[in-house]
């Protein structure tokens, strides 16, 4: 097992390098002089020149890449000029909030999606199946940012059950129940689309598995139906569900950008959008690389989970 994880980690190195190269190349697409772009057109020539030196922009592209990469590896992501603090400090703080939001959402969409898919498949064409299919269709069609706004209107403004936005109450908040109250709406809104996608996939994966001969074997030996569905069938279906969970985690992470804006959640997505609008490119660059790298590592964890489930995978 340990050696499998190690192998997967090694194989992630080129992907991680590729990510930095891609981000670096995109950032070097900036039309005109990057320093001017960052500082805006009112920048003094001295400032522009200083930034050029700081960023190493006077050096050739390849050399610049390796300097940047080397700096990142030593934990130096540069300094955000708009916030006037190290980029990495800001990212770590923001990423924490995003992780709470996206993580909760991911748990919700995985559990709910798989459960809905299993029920749907076991009751194919029955009432539950039709109801779930309908809800799922709505879920995957409503844009998460619109759903979030409508939830605020209903649950926060009209019913007054939950806070409108933010992560903690400004006064007297900060504890876990407070966080939970603030988390419910954004996490649910963020989970909606992914729940729908996972439910659909789980349903078809379950139906595929329920047609298999080994399900008939389980029934033939008198295994109770509940165990046939939740044990034999679901376990086999998980082999095709787990990779989709990995992909959906990427969509949840992406959707978090919108949700963080709608609910004013102090996460990394909102930071990125603000950074783009203020042209704080170092912050954008660092944030994108950091989150993408985390996602790659998460997918390794998904692969490991898959190998634990399926003995046919050589570890």
């Amino acid at each position, binding site marked *: 097992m340990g050696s499998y994880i190690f192998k997967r980690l090694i194989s992630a190195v080129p*992907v991680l390098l590729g990510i930095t190269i*891609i*981000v670096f190349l995109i*950032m070097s*697409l*900036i*039309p005109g002089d990057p320093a001017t*772009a960052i500082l805006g057109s009112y920048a003094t020539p001295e400032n522009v020149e200083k930034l050029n030196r700081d960023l190493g922009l006077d050096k050739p592209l390849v050399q610049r890449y390796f300097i940047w990469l080397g700096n990142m590896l030593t934990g130096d992501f540069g300094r955000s000029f708009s916030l006037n603090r190290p980029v990495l400090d800001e990212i770590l703080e923001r990423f924490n909030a995003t992780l709470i939001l996206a993580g909760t959402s991911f748990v919700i969409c995985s559990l709910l999606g798989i459960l809905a898919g299993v029920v749907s*498949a*076991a009751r*194919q064409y029955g009432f539950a199946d039709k109801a779930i299919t309908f809800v799922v269709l709505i879920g995957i069609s409503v*844009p998460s940012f*619109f759903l979030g*706004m409508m939830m*605020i209107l209903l649950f926060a*403004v009209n019913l007054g059950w939950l806070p*409108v936005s933010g992560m903690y109450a400004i006064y007297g908040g900060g504890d876990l129940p407070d966080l939970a109250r603030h988390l419910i709406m954004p996490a649910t809104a963020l989970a909606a689309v992914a729940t729908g996608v996972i439910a659909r996939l789980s349903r078809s994966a*379950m*139906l595929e598995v*329920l047609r298999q*001969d*080994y399900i*008939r*074997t*389980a*029934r*033939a*030996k*008198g*295994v*109770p*139906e509940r*165990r046939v569905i939740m044990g*034999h069938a679901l*376990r*086999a279906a998980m082999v095709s569900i787990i990779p989709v969970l990995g992909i959906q985690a*990427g*969509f949840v*992470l*992406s959707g978090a*950008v*919108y949700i963080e804006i*709608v609910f004013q959640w102090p996460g990394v*997505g909102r930071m*990125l*959008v603000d*950074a*783009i*609008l203020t042209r704080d490119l170092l912050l*954008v*660059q660092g944030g*994108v690389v950091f*989150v*993408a790298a985390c*996602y*790659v590592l998460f997918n390794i964890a998904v692969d490991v989970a898959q190998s634990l*489930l*399926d*003995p*046919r995978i050589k570890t």
Partner: protein
Amino acid sequence: MSTFLKLLFRNRLAAMGAVILAVIVLAVLAVPLLPLQDPDVTATADRFKRPFTDGHLLGTDHLGRDLLSRLLHGTRLSLAIGVAAALIAATIGSAIGIIAGYFGGRTDNIIMRTVDMLMAFPYILLALAIVAALGPGLMNALIAVAAVNIPFFARNIRGITVGLAGREFIDAARLAGMGHARIILTELLPNVLPVIVIAMSTTVGWMILETAGLSFLGLGSQPPQADLGSMLGEARSAMISHPHTSIVPGLMIFLIVMSINLLGDGVRDALDPRLRSGALSRPLPTTLVERSGDIPEPTDDLLAIQDLHTQFHVGARNYRAVGGVSLAVRPGECLGVIGESGSGKSVTALSVMGLVASPPGVITGGAVRYQGEDLIGAPYETLRKKRGDHVAYIFQDPLSTLHPLYSVGDQLAEAILSHHKIGKAEARRRAIELLRDVRIPNAESRVDNYPHEMSGGMRQRVGIAMALANEPDVIIADEPTTALDVTVQAQILALLDDLRRDRGLAIVFITHDFGVVAQLCDRVAVMYAGRIVEEGPTTAVLDAPAHPYTKRLIACVPELGGGRRELAAIPGLPPVVSDLPAGCAFAPRCDKAQESCRAGEIDLKGSAPRAVRCLYPEEAV
């Protein structure tokens, strides 16, 4: 194509999606012709007019602009941008995919590695990075969304191209001296185009949503120009006081995406060959029962199948897989049921414990009695308690019939635990014992193996061990040795024979091989087209087959017990059970067939235990 459209529109939801989408598209196409107000003219005095006020059907926004006009213009813009992004992504992505797939080798390798890396990003990060570099703006958002979707097309189209590039017509074109560009454009492209179009139709909804999303974040269209996303984004600050300004554009995005989704699902379903044939089996725990006619009286046999009728209801058609079969076994007896594939022998066997895949399977008549108790239509729990405990099955091909993700020990233990309240350790001990009983060497270590770690013969022994787990009275073995080689087959048969003698098991042995029947069975029933055509003691049937079909079957066996054989020597194919000819089903293949054979129903006649369903039998019985 016309079947495709028919299937698409038979799907009511897909048709609904098509209609909604058509209405929206027509409306935005007609925008220049409609008497709309200028979407960008502000009138601060008329701010936040509610919907249905005079002159403003949907009200006005925070600058007093007419919402209906802005909505239609915004929808127009959003659709145009989304479709443009889809076209760009499809064109560039497909080009990359075709190049990678066509040239293969290094080119392919480098391109696909890059694609993999691009796909390692959560899509929005890439889009944000691009917008950050190029600056906010509608065009840049379009570029970002298109770019983010290129890898998807590249990967899909490459897969298709790789498959096509190895085909003869491409080789032929190459030999004919055509250049690469010409081969790609004239030979490859026409073949991948349909796939590109389908991939586009499934992603265009996404791209509309993504561009709207970027605009919502303020990174796409800039004021005063508005697409649906930026309308929603601008309305957000007034959401609480004037929700209609948010709801109007939000609902429109929802409607567009939903209709595209509905249509896309319909397209996918219509293209799915399995749905097309209507042959999807569904997952009920027991076979459906819709029994009509009289229920036969109980007998004193251990297991009795009485006038069983099982059908497959697929769409409007009924396939009569089993058309009135009666069989019975007593303790210690082995009954062979023989026939070609499609003769209904397996369906008969599966009907006993309600294991026919259902739907489409439906038991429509007769009875199955275990110790006199009728099991057809019995409650699920009654049936479950009998399954494996009293009547157990051994199936063909144990690689597909054993669960790939559980160790064989767990599967054996589970068989016991489903019927007996014993501890886990005790169940494991029993599992090892069972493996020993079926003569698996090193049972203690084998018990932790997964099915894929065992040989075919070993797996089949596990299958037998599982059937024996609860010491059943009856074992139904459905071609248990077909997948095995001759030596292993002989061992398995010997094992079954021992078990039957030692434990007084009754065995129903389903096979297409007379050699196997001769080795193991006391009596044999020959099935053809869902019915029994001849039955009797094995030696009697073998020595003097009465039905022309049986005679041919036996003639096909070059040497008894010689392993697997197809019944190829009989000219013609078994009939499709959906439209059986009147009279004898074997008539089209029988060289003794007369007019009278096709005239009407022929009874199974004879003096017990022999019987035959033939007007001109080879032997009198």
